[in-house]
C-alpha cells in the first residue's frame, strides 16, 4: 500500500505539476492569475477526445495540434486585453474578474459544443494494458502522463534558461520596468508567454481526460483550483516550483486516499490553506504576498 501510494503519488503528482505549469508561467510573467486555466485544460481534453473518437487518432496527438493553436490564440487574446489591463489601477484584480468571465464563456461554449455529460476515452494512450512498476500495477496513463509531463516541463525550463527569448522572459518576470528599459519588446514577450501558458494547459488536457476519468464542461473551475493549489505549494511564478508542488500535492492526495479516504477530499484545500498561511511564498518561492 505504501509503495503503491508512493508511486501513484509521484506519477500523478508529475501530471499535476505539468497541469499547473501554465498557470505559474502566466503569473510569473504577466502577474495575472488565469482563472480560466482549468477551462483551457478542458478544451484540450475535448480536442483529445474528439481526435480519438472521430478521427481515431491517438489522443496524445492533440498536443502538437493544440500547441500552435493555443499560442496563436493566447497571443491574440493578450493583445486584445493588454491595453485595458494597462490602464487599470488594479490590474491583478481586474484580470481576476476578466478571466473569471472568460472561464464562464468557455464553459458555456463547451456545453453548447459538446455533450453535457462526462465523456470518457476507452482506449488508453498506449493501448489498454496495465503497466507494472516495482511489482505494482498501474493504469498505463499514469506513467504516460508522467512521461509527457517531465519532458514538457524540461522543454519549458530549456526555453526559459537556455534561449534568448527565455532570458527576456525571465528578465520580465523579475522586473517589468527594467526589462522595458533594457530594450526588451515587453508586449511581444508577454504575449508569447501567455500563448505558451495556454499551450501548456491545453497539452495537459490531453492527459487530464485520462487521469481525471473523463472530461465534462463543468470540470474547469475544479482543475483551476487544483492547479492553483499546486503552484501555491511550490511557489507562484516559479516553473520548477510547480513540479515540486505537484509532487507534494499528488503524494498527499494518494496517501490520504490510502489511509484516510473519508478525509481525502479535504486534503487539497487544507494543504493549500496551510501553505498559504504558513509559508506564503511557497516551498520554493521567494516572493512574499502578504497584504
Amino acid at each position, binding site marked *: 500500500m505504501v509503495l503503491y501510494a508512493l508511486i501513484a503519488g509521484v506519477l500523478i503528482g508529475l501530471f499535476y505539476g505539468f497541469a499547473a505549469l501554465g498557470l505559474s508561467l502566466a503569473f510569473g510573467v504577466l502577474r495575472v492569475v488565469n482563472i480560466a486555466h482549468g477551462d483551457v485544460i478542458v478544451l484540450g481534453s475535448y480536442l483529445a477526445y474528439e481526435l480519438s473518437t472521430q478521427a481515431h487518432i491517438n489522443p496524445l496527438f492533440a498536443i502538437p495540434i493544440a500547441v500552435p493553436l493555443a499560442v496563436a490564440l493566447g497571443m491574440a487574446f493578450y493583445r486584445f486585453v493588454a491595453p485595458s489591463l494597462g490602464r487599470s489601477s*488594479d490590474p491583478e484584480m481586474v484580470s481576476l*474578474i476578466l478571466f473569471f468571465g472568460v472561464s464562464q464563456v468557455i464553459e458555456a461554449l463547451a456545453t453548447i459544443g459538446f455533450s453535457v455529460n462526462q465523456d470518457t476515452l476507452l482506449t488508453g494512450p498506449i493501448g489498454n494494458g496495465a503497466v507494472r512498476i516495482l511489482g505494482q500495477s498501474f493504469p498505463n496513463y499514469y506513467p504516460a502522463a508522467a512521461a509527457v509531463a517531465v519532458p514538457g516541463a524540461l522543454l519549458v525550463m530549456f526555453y526559459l534558461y537556455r534561449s534568448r527569448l527565455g532570458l527576456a522572459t525571465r528578465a520580465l518576470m523579475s522586473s517589468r520596468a527594467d526589462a522595458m528599459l533594457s530594450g526588451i519588446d515587453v508586449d511581444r514577450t508577454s504575449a508569447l508567454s501567455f500563448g505558451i501558458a495556454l499551450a501548456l494547459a491545453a497539452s495537459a488536457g490531453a492527459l487530464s481526460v485520462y487521469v481525471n476519468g473523463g472530461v465534462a464542461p463543468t470540470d474547469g473551475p475544479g482543475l483551476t483550483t487544483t492547479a492553483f493549489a499546486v503552484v501555491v505549494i511550490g511557489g507562484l511564478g516559479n516553473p520548477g516550483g510547480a513540479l515540486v508542488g505537484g509532487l507534494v500535492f499528488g503524494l498527499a492526495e494518494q496517501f490520504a486516499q490510502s489511509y484516510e479516504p473519508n478525509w481525502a477530499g479535504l486534503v487539497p484545500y487544507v494543504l493549500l490553506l496551510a501553505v498559504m498561511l504558513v509559508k506564503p511564498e511557497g516551498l520554493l518561492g521567494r516572493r512574499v504576498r502578504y497584504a
Partner: protein
Amino acid sequence: MPEGVAGASGQRATRAQTWRRRGADVAAVLVPTVLFALARTVDSNLLLLVTIMVYVVLAQGVNVIYGFTGYLPFGYVGFFGAGAYGTYIAVAHLGAGAVEATVLGGVCAVLVAIVLIPLLRLRGAYFAIASLAAALALSSLVSNPSLQSVTNGPYGADLSQVFSSGGSYWTAVVIVAFAMLVVVVLRRSRLGLQLRAVRADQVSASYAGVNVVAARTGAWLLSALLAGLAGGVYAWAISTFYPTAVFDTTISLFAIVFALFGGVGTVLGPVVGAVVLYYVYNAIGVNDPQYFQLIFGVVIVVIALFLPGGLAAVLLGARRRLATRGADAG
C-alpha cells in the same frame, strides 16, 4: 469607486445638503425594503422573492468586503453555507425557533469568519482562491459522514418542522433592510471612511492612525454576518437541503457578478444588479442556460475591461455628461 467622478464643488456642505443627504440615506434603506415588502402582493412566487432578497443581501455582503476593502471572496458561499447549517443546527440540536436560528446562522458565519481571519494576510488572487479553498473545505467537512451527529452529514438538513413561507419571507425583508442599513451606515461611518482610505493607500492610511488590520477585519466580519443571515433565511425558506445546495459555488459567482454589475462601493448598485440580473436569469436563463452563461461571461469580461464601476458608473457618467452639456448650453 464612483466617488472618484464626483463634482469638484469648492463650497462646504450646507445644511440643506446635509438634510438631503440624510433623506437619501433613509430612502436607500426604506425604498428597497418597502418594495420587497409590497412585492408579495404582486408576485405570488414568494420563494423567488426570497431568493432575490437573498442575492441582494449577498451582493451587499460582497460590496462590503470587495467594494470597501478590495478583497474579492470567491469562496463567499462558505459563509452562506455556514449560515444555513448554523440555522439547521440551532433548530435541530438547540431547539431554537426559526427566527432565532436564522440569527444564530449569522453568528455561525461570523465564527467561521473569525477562524478565517488569517486569510486577510493574503491579497489579490491569493486571497480570492484561499477563500474558495476554505469554502470547499467547509463544504467537504459538513457533508462528511463522520459528522453525521452534528450536520447529518451527506443525508442533508431538514427544517420542515419550522417551515413558514410567510415567516421566512418577512425575515428576509428585515434582513434586506439590515443589509441596506449596514452599507449606508458603513459609508457614512468612520470605519467606512477608513476602509476607503486603506483601499486607496495602505501606508498613508496607517500614518493617519488607521488600524488597517482591525478595519479590514471589521469589514470581513460584517460581510460574513450578512452572508450568514442570508444563508440562514434561505435554509428556512427551502427547509430541506443537502450540503451541495448551500455550498454551491455558483452562489458566490452570482453574488459577485450582481455586485460588480450594479457597481461596488455604491449603496444601491448591488441591489439593482441583483434584482435586474436575477429576473433576467429567471426569465431567460432557465430555458437556455448555456446561452445565459455565455452572456453572463461576456458581461463579466466587458465589466472587467471597460466598465470597472458597473452600472452605477455608467449612470453617473451619463449624468455628468448631461450636466456638462447643460452647463455649456447655459
